[in-house]
């Protein structure tokens, strides 16, 4: 496999976007990423998306988006892995360009979620779970996470309020991200008083849905200076994908031996660490899948940043802020940047590239060299991990 570099990024703000259709939102992010790369085309287009068929009554997104951005004729396809669709699309792009099948690819994630009624969107999201044995019982996606969080509180003795730092940190970081859905600081008191959605998960444990798209352009690392002179002109640091791995687990929470352990996160992260030749201690920041505060905790544990049952301690000790030992959600995370589900995995990659290029503004992590992004499909059934590294400027 050839090594892969990310040479362009683009994103649209996560919003309730009544002005743009799914193709327009996707097109905006893709055109921005091509501009950023100094290109006008790419060999392949991979679109991460979960809900276009259900909520926009639109499939065949590969061709739709290629047509819209003027790249008719190119190889283009939609990739679906529930909320993990974005990273799943990136992995396919990496395999296509890494293998030599394609010389360049655009990988985008797009989702349009705010046009439908709440109950309809809730039902659509629940299709990530087991339709016959979970969803039929009236459990929502939030409900599944609530079942996990309730048990976590019981088993490890934490109070609900001990999870507040995850949400407070995400909101504080999103304040400085123009693309974020939410721009408001929250306090521990706000967190404690938030409206209950599915006990013990309240509104400030949960990420907001939204419309949005993010895109990256990938090429072989060896080509960056040789074939793309515009990149050399920018004096930008090369961003290399040094680890990419995906793993699966039982689809349903109830089937897992330990419903409080993300086995697929452990497995995909271990593979990605091995590919990159690093350990958790080398990771400068972690864009994790904080769809719910409990998911942030479980991810930190399964990826080796905290002992089992101890992740809330990292939050309480301030270790997850941009000045801590393992900064998370540095641009707002799912919690405050927003969670346009199939697009989320690419927003994470765009944000990681911003950090590694030194373009993260007020939430810039000093000397960031290695970033990790992890995207989760369903309640933990598909977990995809990417590690990005910045080369030193030469």
């Amino acid at each position: 496999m050839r090594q892969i570099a990310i040479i362009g990024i683009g994103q649209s703000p996560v919003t309730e976007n009544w002005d743009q259709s799914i193709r327009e939102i996707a097109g905006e992010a893709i055109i921005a990423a091509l501009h950023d790369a100094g290109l006008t085309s790419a060999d392949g287009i991979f679109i991460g998306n979960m809900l276009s068929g259900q909520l926009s009554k639109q499939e065949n997104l590969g061709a739709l988006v290629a047509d819209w951005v003027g790249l008719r004729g190119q190889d283009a396809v939609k990739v679906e892995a529930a909320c993990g669709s974005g990273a799943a699309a990136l992995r396919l792009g990496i395999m296509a360009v890494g293998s030599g099948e394609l010389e360049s690819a655009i990988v985008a994630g797009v989702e349009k979620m705010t046009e439908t009624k709440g109950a309809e969107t809730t039902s659509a999201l629940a299709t990530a779970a087991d339709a016959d044995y979970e969803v039929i019982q009236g459990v929502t996606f939030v409900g599944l996470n609530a079942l996990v969080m309730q048990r976590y509180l019981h088993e490890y003795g934490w109070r609900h309020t001990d999870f507040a730092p995850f949400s407070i940190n995400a909101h504080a970081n999103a304040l400085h991200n123009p693309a974020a859905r939410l721009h408001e600081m929250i306090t521990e008191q706000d967190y404690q008083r938030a409206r209950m959605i599915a006990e013990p998960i309240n509104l400030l444990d949960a990420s907001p849905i939204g419309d949005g798209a993010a895109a990256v352009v990938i090429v072989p690392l060896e080509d960056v200076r040789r074939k793309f002179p515009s990149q050399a002109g920018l004096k930008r640091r090369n961003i290399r994908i040094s680890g990419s791995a995906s793993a699966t687990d039982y689809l349903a929470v109830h089937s897992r031996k330990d419903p409080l352990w993300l086995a697929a996160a452990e497995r995909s992260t271990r593979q990605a660490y091995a590919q990159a030749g690093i350990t958790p201690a080398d990771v400068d920041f972690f864009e994790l899948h904080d769809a719910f505060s409990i998911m942030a905790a479980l991810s930190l544990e399964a990826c080796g940043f905290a002992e089992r049952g101890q992740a809330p301690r990292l939050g309480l000790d301030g270790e997850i802020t941009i000045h801590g030992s393992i900064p998370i959600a540095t641009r707002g995370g799912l919690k405050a940047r927003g969670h346009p589900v199939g697009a989320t995995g690419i927003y994470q990659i765009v944000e990681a590239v911003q950090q590694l290029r030194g373009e993260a503004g007020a939430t810039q992590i000093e000397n960031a060299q290695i970033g990790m992004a992890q995207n989760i499909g369903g309640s933990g059934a598909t977990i995809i991990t990417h590690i990005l590294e910045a080369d030193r400027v030469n």
Partner: protein
Amino acid sequence: MEISRHWRLRKQRYGLMGEICPHCEAKLFPPRDICPECGGEAKTLYQFSGKGEVYSYTTIYEPPAGYEENAPYTVALVKLDEGPIVTAQLTDLGEEQVQIGTPVEMVTRRLRQDGDERGMIIYGYKFRPVGLGPH
């Protein structure tokens, strides 16, 4: 929703029919073709007792389409006496406060009513605290 899709699952929905692995005797619910314990093929039916205890629970305040009329309602992970955990609604709770560890038993109840012109009503398992008589 499609009628055959629910009819196909009638043994599971009405009778909590799972499987026992012929190779390692692991008891499986829901049924699956390959035993997760030993990797052997598992197709031998096994009748679960319907007794268990609450492993975790939550109250759903924002229900999906088709479940609005009963909201808020309680959903649990129920650990069956035979080992597996199932996701199910709790019912007949009355004033009782559910807790992790509360013993429960299976009952058959209406799960949802489809809003289309056929108005199909889907029945299936829920669980209620042990010790309560039929309502």
